[in-house]
């Protein structure tokens, strides 16, 4: 499982680096959800579907029948900013009346309010009005599975950030080596070197945290990886743009494909403050703060 996860994370980093246009991360996540040891799920969803994966809480999930004995659900509420929500098959994870559940969603039976993030990636809000889920489609999850799904979503997003950060490094190093001003490449200026080194470092830092979380998935490793990945975005994007000059600020430059994603992804699946707070709470609940980090 860990090895499969590490492979997925490597693929997600590549997707982030290439600013891959499509719900790749979400699809990988959907398949990871399928890989959870829940046999019915593999039957419930056919291969070849494009999956998005939505975990936002809905405002109401209730039993469909008055007795409450039937597993069928009626769901009301909003799923805000679902990646590719209008076009993908959405898997919903939610707290049901009898514990966490997972069910597929038919966007055609929802009210879709289209939207995008700063990079233009679809982030559609789906409104559910007394949406009926047949009992066969409702798959109970254990609380641990629900928690793990949240960790995997955050790790996937952090891996995308790591990839886009690498792209910022690549493009910036290339630009400063080839762009000449005052008769020499930008990269020969000490002030530029200092900033460039910090960019390289910050990107390496994110990559190392993401790789570590992919090797050993845990609340601490994922909280640290996503908190750090999101926290590093400001510095990475700032330096990449500063060293690209005006071209990076316009559609003439490619660096925006990475930086606009970074600015969006840092908020998605939990921003740095929320993950840092979770890590902080873990640390204060533990006997030994060092033992929490070095297991």
């Amino acid at each position, binding site marked *: 499982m860990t090895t499969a996860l590490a492979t997925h994370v490597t693929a997600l980093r590549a997707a982030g680096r290439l600013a891959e246009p499509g719900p790749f991360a979400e699809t990988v996540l959907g398949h990871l959800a399928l890989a959870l040891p829940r046999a019915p799920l593999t039957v419930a969803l056919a291969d070849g579907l494009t999956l998005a994966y939505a975990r936002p809480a809905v405002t109401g999930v209730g039993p469909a029948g008055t007795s409450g004995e039937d597993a069928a659900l009626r769901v009301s509420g909003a799923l805000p900013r679902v990646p590719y929500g209008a076009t993908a098959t959405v898997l919903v994870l939610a707290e049901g009346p009898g514990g966490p559940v997972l069910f597929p969603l038919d966007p055609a039976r929802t009210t879709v309010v289209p939207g995008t993030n700063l990079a233009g990636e679809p982030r559609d809000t789906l409104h559910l009005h007394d949406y009926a889920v047949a009992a066969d489609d409702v798959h109970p999850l254990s609380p641990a599975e629900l928690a793990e799904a949240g960790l995997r979503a955050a790790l996937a997003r952090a891996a995308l950030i790591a990839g886009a950060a690498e792209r910022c490094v690549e493009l910036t*190093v290339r630009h400063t080596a080839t762009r000449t001003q005052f008769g020499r490449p930008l990269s020969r200026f000490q002030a530029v070197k200092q900033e460039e080194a910090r960019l390289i470092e*910050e990107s390496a*830092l994110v990559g190392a945290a993401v790789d570590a979380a992919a090797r050993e998935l845990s609340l601490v490793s994922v909280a640290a990886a996503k908190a750090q990945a999101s926290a590093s975005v400001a510095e990475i994007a700032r330096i990449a743009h500063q060293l690209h000059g005006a071209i990076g600020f316009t559609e003439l430059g490619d660096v925006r494909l990475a930086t606009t994603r970074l600015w969006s992804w840092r908020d998605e699946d939990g921003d740095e403050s929320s993950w840092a707070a979770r*890590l902080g709470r873990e640390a204060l609940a533990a006997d030994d703060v060092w033992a929490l980090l070095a297991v």
Partner: protein
Amino acid sequence: MTATTDTLQLRREVRDFLAEERARGTVLGRPDSWLTGWDPQFSRRLAGRGWVGMALPPEYGGGGLGFAARVVVIEELLAAGAPVSAHWVADRQIGPSVLAHGTEEQKQRFLPAIAAGRCYFSIGMSEQEAGSDLANVRTRAERVPGGWRLTGTKKWTGGAHVNDYAIVLARTSEHEDRHQGLSQFIVDLRAPGVRTEPIRLISGEHTFNWFHLDGVEVPDGMLLGQEGDGWKQVTGELAFERSGPERYLSTFPLLVSLTRELRRGAATPDQQARLGALLARVFAVRQLSLGVADALDAGRPADVRAALVKDLGTRLEGDIVHEVRRILPVTADTGATPGSYPHHLAYALLHSPGYTLRGGANEILRGIITRGLEQQS
């Protein structure tokens, strides 16, 4: 690095050992204890457990283990603020350097003593005119019958007033290329002609010295490696010196101190998030540092990544000090009870200018990082 059963077991053993030492009152959880925590008895007890010279081969009294195992021990010691400065340099770089470049006689003489925690070294590299620009050293070694005569003055030499030996970089011949003609010598700090004068830190502590060599006679057998290879040998040590846990854990004991204080009451969400943000960064830098240890274990070059760890890690050490103060405001006080939060904060703060200077000023290291990446691309 993936934790193996062996390293998990080792980590547990070190934690148990540290718990005993805390009970003994020798581990006070002070920040920057690898610089100022000089305790030969502690060093010997640590060596008694096999945790000094761990990477040295068993035939020289070492543990025959990889750097990864040593890193486990070092991490635990530094995070706990244990007094490791007596054997620090000998364990970290003299052992590996003597093993790599030394004669059989030097190996027999120094390595078992280092691994026993009984032989302490200082580093005689920097001088008045040779700081970041180390190739500018002026200390000279002249040939005399049966050996060399060393003359010059080293600066910032930590522990020269208490340690046994110093490794000294000196010029043995003149060349147009300044990197040639430098050699390394092992100098007995009790030899005639050696004189030290304290250079006090801004905290008032005495660890640095002027280290004068007034015609100190050094026998042939104490030349380390080849004459004229000093520069290559010194730069070869730098990856070890720059990437280890001491480049990001120096102020971790202050974080331990902070969490202890925060647990007394109900931490606010802001305090939780700020603490968590620091821990996330420690987590991430640690992973980078472990990656360098793995590379060194595998014999891969790691100069660039070591420089990167050093810049990130030592900036983090300073950031921790200032952020901790914002999370839980307190007046830093060297007069407070030793081991208390305001006492730790005071020393972490007074030591903070050193974090990004020692082991090579960070501004210079960033040049190594950008050069390294340009060469790759």
